[in-house]
């Protein structure tokens, strides 16, 4: 199999795809407002024309590099390039003000690379064993897993869980459109033939992430970034020496990021915020945090990149996306006949292990590409958005059209883009809606399959021990935060009285 893996990777198409995606990811991550998710969505039309391994390789590489590149404007402009860099933007900016911009970015680069490699190792060793275990799962277990994923999804990015839940329901409602249901009955198509196959996920996502951001920029195009701090400071070598001073933090950040990433619903930004918090609380010098102290940078920089690789564990083993990036990736996996699930580990093992190898390559190629970007960092952040945004609009149109060569998909993109703009402005998060659209058909399918195979017996959902355990886990996921809140309220009222 090793020879097959090497043959898969060492093709001209794969190598060009990885290098191109790394440069693309660097630009997308380094320009504030353009996220790693948007980079993934914009890459989908390109993957359509690539072989399976290079297609997925573009996404793995672009995302890994984009998450690091988000540190560049954070450090030089105090404006995180992606939400995953927000947790330590102030810390990096303070270092830049002291003249240590290159040092701060070097720490971000090396810790990101280490975090990514750490989580890849976990992915390589854990995913196959988990897949062996998951072969025993029936539709009842999968049903509970999907509900578990949906429960976590409602909480992503929402300051108000109710708004997250509303968006999740909206996503599930959109997933019901078309005749892709067990009965084959057209639902909510309004007589439109183009909707019989459902709402195309890619145009919808391109609209929600791309068009909404362009609209946000259009509403205030005066917003300027100011001049970036000159990227001064010592060379990248010294960054390695600083990281070596914090081995515990590096490992802790990588481990926490890996765990957080593997949970459905939590992503790189949550991992970075949690790591930053833990780093400060466990630090021997917590007072130094906020004044340009590298300790938190090491830990949170490793955490956000490690969460990317581990988010692939539920995506590959169960077909359940951990975040909006893996939701897009799952769509591409289906498009490339690499249907996620435990069978993937036996039927397409060489291609799967090629993807694992690409994770390693992506996290290594990040170092030279990132090194170049650190030295030209201020150039990237100076590319005016008044030029970039119209180009992105054109790519959104092209990307949406290319999937089915249909202008109807461009209209879908526009509709969901405008909708997402107004909803996001009002504090309704987008990610739960995307996960709702991806998980909706699975939820219905597993429910109907379980009910049909059991002859309509509702207890079939808990009659198998494994299903009952996951159902219990789900109940605890719902009840623990409730109990915790009630206890907090109770203790607060006791204190007041």
């Amino acid at each position, binding site marked *: 199999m090793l020879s097959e893996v090497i043959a898969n990777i060492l093709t001209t198409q794969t190598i060009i795809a990885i290098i191109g995606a790394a440069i693309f990811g660097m630009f997308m991550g380094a320009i504030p407002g353009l996220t790693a998710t948007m980079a993934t969505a914009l890459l989908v039309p*390109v993957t*359509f*024309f690539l072989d399976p391994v290079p297609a997925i390789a573009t996404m793995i590489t672009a995302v890994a590099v984009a998450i690091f590149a988000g540190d560049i404007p954070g450090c030089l402009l105090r404006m995180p390039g992606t939400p995953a860099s927000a947790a330590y933007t102030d810390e990096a900016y303070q270092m830049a003000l002291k003249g240590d911009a290159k040092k701060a970015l070097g720490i971000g680069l090396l810790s990101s690379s280490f975090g990514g490699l750490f989580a890849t190792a976990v992915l390589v060793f854990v995913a196959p064993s988990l897949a062996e275990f998951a072969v025993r799962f029936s539709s009842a277990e999968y049903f509970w897993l999907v509900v578990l994923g949906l429960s976590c999804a409602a909480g992503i990015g929402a300051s*108000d869980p*109710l*708004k997250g839940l*509303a968006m999740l*329901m*909206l996503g*599930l*409602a959109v997933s*019901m459109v078309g005749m892709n*249901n*067990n*009965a084959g*009955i057209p*639902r*909510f198509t309004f007589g439109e033939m183009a909707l019989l196959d459902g709402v195309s996920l890619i145009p919808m996502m391109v609209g929600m992430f791309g*068009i909404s951001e*362009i*609209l946000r*920029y*259009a*509403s*205030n*195009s005066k*917003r300027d970034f100011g001049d970036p701090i000159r990227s001064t400071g010592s060379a990248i070598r010294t960054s390695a020496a600083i990281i070596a001073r914090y081995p515990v933090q590096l490992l802790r950040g990588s481990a926490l990021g890996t765990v957080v990433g593997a949970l459905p619903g939590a992503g790189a930004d949550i991992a970075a915020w949690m790591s930053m918090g833990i780093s400060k609380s466990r630090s021997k010098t917590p007072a130094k945090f906020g004044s340009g102290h590298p300790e938190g940078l090491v830990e949170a920089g490793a955490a956000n990149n490690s969460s990317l690789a581990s988010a692939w564990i539920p995506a590959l083993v169960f077909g359940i996306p951990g975040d909006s990036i893996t939701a897009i990736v799952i769509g591409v996996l289906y498009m490339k006949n690499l249907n996620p699930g435990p069978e993937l580990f036996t039927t397409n093992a060489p291609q799967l292990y090629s993807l694992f190898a690409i994770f390693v390559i992506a996290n290594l190629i990040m170092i030279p590409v990132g090194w170049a970007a650190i030295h030209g960092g201020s150039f990237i952040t100076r590319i*005016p958005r*008044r*030029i970039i*945004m*119209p*180009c992105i*609009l*054109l*790519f959104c*149109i*092209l990307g949406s*059209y*290319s999937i089915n*060569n249909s*202008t109807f998909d*461009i*209209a879908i*993109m*526009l509709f969901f883009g*405008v909708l997402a703009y*107004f909803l996001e*402005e*009002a*504090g*309704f998060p987008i990610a739960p809606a995307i996960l709702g659209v991806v998980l909706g058909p699975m*939820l*219905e399918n597993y*429910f*109907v399959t379980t*009910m*049909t195979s059991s*002859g*309509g017996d509702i207890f079939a959902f808990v009659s198998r021990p494994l299903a009952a355990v996951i159902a219990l886990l789900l109940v605890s996921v719902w009840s623990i935060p409730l109990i915790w809140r009630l206890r907090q309220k109770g203790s607060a009222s006791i204190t007041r009285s």
Partner: protein
Amino acid sequence: MKFNDTVISSLLLIVAGLMYYNAKTLPSLPGQTVGPALFPITISIMLGLVSMAILLKSITGKRKERWLTLDNAILSPRSLISIFLVPASVVFYIAFANTAGFLIVSTVILFVMMVAFRAKLYIAAPLAVVVSSVSFLLFRGVLLVPLPEGAVERVLMELSHAV
């Protein structure tokens, strides 16, 4: 441009209601334990309940917001035109790409949007032509996407065949 929670949740409530009544008309199939209406009905009820909760919270909440809040920046004519141009460009593409061809329509969109976003005319014009041409070559030439063709594309194709 922000609508408050009362407006958004009311709209979501209407969507939930319409979804419920539409789902009620879906047929049930003989011999199937679960019909195609079950999930849409369940989702519509849940969406309705969540929307009602948000609506109640916004009505009874202490923080009162106007139905529509506009930033000062958005009220400038330039911002209003820029916002309008984003959906208008997409509609323009859908309406005219098949007759005028990709190159002309995309060049116009890029040029107009760049100028609306305050790019200088002498930068916007050549960039629009270059980006549009490169996109055409990439998607039509390399990725073989059948982009809409007009007179310009046909002339270019004939020229390339002649060469």
